[in-house]
């Protein structure tokens, strides 16, 4: 049996993460009230990415996992971003 030295995250740390996430949610909602069309979408997506990053890092414990996990997650996200870029670089120029 392989037991690792597990980092135990305290409850207060999780509360702080939630407060941050709720603040970001509030920010997203208020930012989208200002209509700047493409820029609004971009802002909302950037904030969503920060929220996702926070969930991945702290709630999903990625921060305390070995670097293998961090590398794999980064690779998968990189592949996905690449697919988006490739799709749009085709579609926008048809």
């Amino acid at each position: 049996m392989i037991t690792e030295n597990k980092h135990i995250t305290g409850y207060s740390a999780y509360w702080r993460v939630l407060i941050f996430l709720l603040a970001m949610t509030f920010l997203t909602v208020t930012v989208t009230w200002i209509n700047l069309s493409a820029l609004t979408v971009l802002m909302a997506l950037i904030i969503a990415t920060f929220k996702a990053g926070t969930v991945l890092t702290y709630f999903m414990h990625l921060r305390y996992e070995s670097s293998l996990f961090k590398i794999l997650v980064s690779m998968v996200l990189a592949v996905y971003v690449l697919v988006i870029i490739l799709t749009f670089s085709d579609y926008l120029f048809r």
Partner: protein
Amino acid sequence: MEEHRDDTAARLGMWVFIFTEILLFGGLFLVYAVMRVRYSAEFHQSAHQLDALIGTINTVVLLVSSMTVAMSITAVQQKNNNLATMLLLITLVCAGIFLFNKYVEWGHKIHLGLYPGSELMVSLKHGEILFFSLYFFMTGLHMLHLVVGAIILTIVMIKVKTGSIHSESYVLLENGGLYWHLVDLIWIFLFPLLYLIT
């Protein structure tokens, strides 16, 4: 005979599954993005018919549920199975609230005759049909994942209560939690893209 156990490998397995889910929903988001560029006015109009308040409440509910499931792991690590069970119960209550809100939302649309394949849907403009089809499909698929997650967490909660998940062996709880966070992650992107871009 000693049972071979590798918790890191178990978590890695769940992460690999999560990667496939990221690509699945990612593909759907890509479809949404391309169609949105193509039919921006109609997408903009259609999004007005969604209730941003319900969407916001659902976002808050899922974020809270992610916190409670993460906390339940800390509770088990600190040998407090009763607290862990309570936290998992709260997580499941949050899931229930989300599902109820979805029932209200979808129910309202269906009551108006707006659902995939309906006469009303088919009579709409092309961009509008695309928006609502994507809305129903993406939130529906997300809801399915949420229900599966809730079932998994219910099983995990029972195991925590009976003690088969405990401070020396809790990777099942961690993996259930990871799956639940995925459900939350998907919604974090669904919410602004469907409800807020108006």
